[in-house]
């Protein structure tokens, strides 16, 4: 008998996996939650329907609840994120023409692989730019997305100038492949299954999984209205318990075949299960000639406390918004951002359920070079590695220093467009 009802919006992507598993494997029902999943066609719809109470919550890009709170792109709404639905899962892909201009996309082994790939990307972009005389175009799914920040960080690091050499534009993921086919895009940063679909269509090669840019990047969160979260705590906590159990199940490799079959259904992704399974296993087909790549943390659904809403994630995202010129930094905005990711709700919901919780709620991002034990209630929690490819370290208490340093190197500005 379900005591709770929740309408949750989602976009058909592999990383809706935990929500889908919570419903289809009855983890939600077991907690008394009638979980209604509503497929949506745009992130804007997701935002507006949550803001106006048509959905209780949604599968959101991690920057979305922050943008909502700051009133970026719409009227300000108090959104909160008490649960991370996945860490990593994006990739940067390029058209075959650009791949050729790069001299191939086969990565070098070892830690220098990302730097080498970006050097090749820069050379390829410049070669095509010389030939065409106009900027190359890269697609991202939404202005407020980690895809946009990761891609811009990479382009800036490669020394490419946004505006003159490259343009970053918003293209809805289901239209990315068509845009590539029509020659409107030279590359993109998008979540799965869209990189794999483009590779299978003979149109693209995967250059870099997001995990090679930042090894532990928040990607999607459960976004809710604060007012609903606070006045419906029983429902919220039951939902979070269900999502936790679903995440544990979905993260286990032995369940990936079942999970990919469920996600493949018409109501969810409506795509072949085999394509979906690649992201779950981290075994990607990198290029149309069938070259394989294996990336251990390509998509992380639960292990390494992946569902914990670290406040430092939100602060890192805010710093990228400032770098990208989407918002000006102010102490008031910083204080508002601190209200978005809600480790307190996560603890209150999952602590009594016996989930091992980290001792801290913020961490220095990018500091762990390997798997590291951390203080937790049961003492069995391992985090990391979580490094950025360029060795950046983000201290949430040193946000101003980070922004100043980013500005000083000239690589800090992500280009306003």
């Amino acid at each position, binding site marked *: 008998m379900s005591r709770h009802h929740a309408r949750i919006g989602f976009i058909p992507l592999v990383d809706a996996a935990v929500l889908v598993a919570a419903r289809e494997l009855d983890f939600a029902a077991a907690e008394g939650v009638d979980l209604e999943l509503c497929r949506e*066609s*745009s*992130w*804007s*719809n997701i935002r*507006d*329907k949550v*803001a*106006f109470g*048509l959905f209780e919550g949604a599968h959101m890009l991690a920057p979305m609840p922050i943008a909502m709170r700051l009133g*970026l*792109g*719409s*009227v300000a709404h108090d959104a909160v994120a008490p649960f991370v639905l996945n860490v990593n899962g994006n990739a940067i892909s390029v058209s075959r023409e650009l791949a050729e201009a790069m001299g191939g996309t086969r990565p070098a082994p070892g830690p220098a692989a990302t730097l080498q790939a970006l050097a090749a990307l820069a050379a390829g972009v410049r070669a095509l730019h010389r030939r065409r005389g106009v900027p190359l175009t890269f697609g991202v*799914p*939404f*202005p407020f997305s980690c895809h946009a920040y990761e891609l811009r960080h990479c382009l800036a690091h490669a020394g490419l100038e946004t505006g003159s050499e490259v343009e970053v*534009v*918003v*293209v*809805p*993921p*289901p*239209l990315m492949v068509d*845009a590539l086919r*029509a020659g*409107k895009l030279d590359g993109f940063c998008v979540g799965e299954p869209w990189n794999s679909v483009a590779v299978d269509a003979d149109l693209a090669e995967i250059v870099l999984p997001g995990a090679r840019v930042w090894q532990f990047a928040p990607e999607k969160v459960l976004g809710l209205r604060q007012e609903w979260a606070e006045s419906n705590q029983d429902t919220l906590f039951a939902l979070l318990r269900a999502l936790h159990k679903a995440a544990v199940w979905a993260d286990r490799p032995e369940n990936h075949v079942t999970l990919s079959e469920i996600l493949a259904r018409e109501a969810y992704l409506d795509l072949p299960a085999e394509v979906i399974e690649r992201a779950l296993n981290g075994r990607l087909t990198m290029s149309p000639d069938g070259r394989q790549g294996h990336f251990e943390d390509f998509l992380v659904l639960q292990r390494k406390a992946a569902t914990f809403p670290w406040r430092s994630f939100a602060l890192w995202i805010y710093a990228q918004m400032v770098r990208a*010129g*989407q918002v000006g930094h102010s102490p008031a905005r910083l204080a508002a951002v601190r209200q978005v990711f809600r480790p307190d709700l996560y603890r209150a919901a999952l602590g009594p359920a016996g989930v091992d919780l980290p001792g801290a709620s913020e961490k220095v991002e990018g500091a762990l070079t390997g798997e590291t034990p951390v203080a937790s209630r049961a003492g069995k929690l391992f985090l990391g590695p979580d490094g950025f490819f360029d060795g950046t370290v983000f201290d949430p208490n040193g946000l101003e220093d980070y922004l100043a340093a980013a500005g000083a190197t000239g690589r800090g500005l992500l280009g*306003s*467009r």
Partner: protein
Amino acid sequence: MKIAVVDPQPERADVIEAGLREAGYRDIHRIAEMPGLLERLSELAPDVILIDLENPSRDVLEQMFEVSRLVSRPIAMFVDESDMSMIEAAVEAGVGAYVVDGMKKERIKAILATAITRFNTFSRLQSELQATKAALSERKVIDRAKGILMKAKGLSEEEAYALLRKTAMGQSRKLSEIAQSVVTAAEMLS
């Protein structure tokens, strides 16, 4: 008042445009092509943009807010919560609207009300059309099944129809489903 209607479906764009013209708006521009959407819109500089909420290109419009210098900063339809009933009606009808900042609320409401009515008219027309099509194809299948039974078993038309009905009732299935089985079986056996 310049209104842009972003819709790749020409039939629906017709219905919306006609409605807006009837309501007295003259400066209406239709955009059917999604590539180059932003360029078209910044050239046009409309006061109001109407878009189907199911159109994934809604996210492309969001890019306009990222940098306010691109076009004069429009605000999403969902201006405030004071008029929830209109917002709900719009969402139900599937209309999204973007409005240039500073426009009077009454003017926005008038346009939105027209758009909602027209979106609803269009979906009603669509479902009527589908229902008619389905009914026609069902009737065709039943006629064919009757013909097959009449020939195979030497029945009259009434008897053939009665047999189909009886079988459908006996199996608690739709008449058209039984008719389809008869047609399929006959095709396989012929």
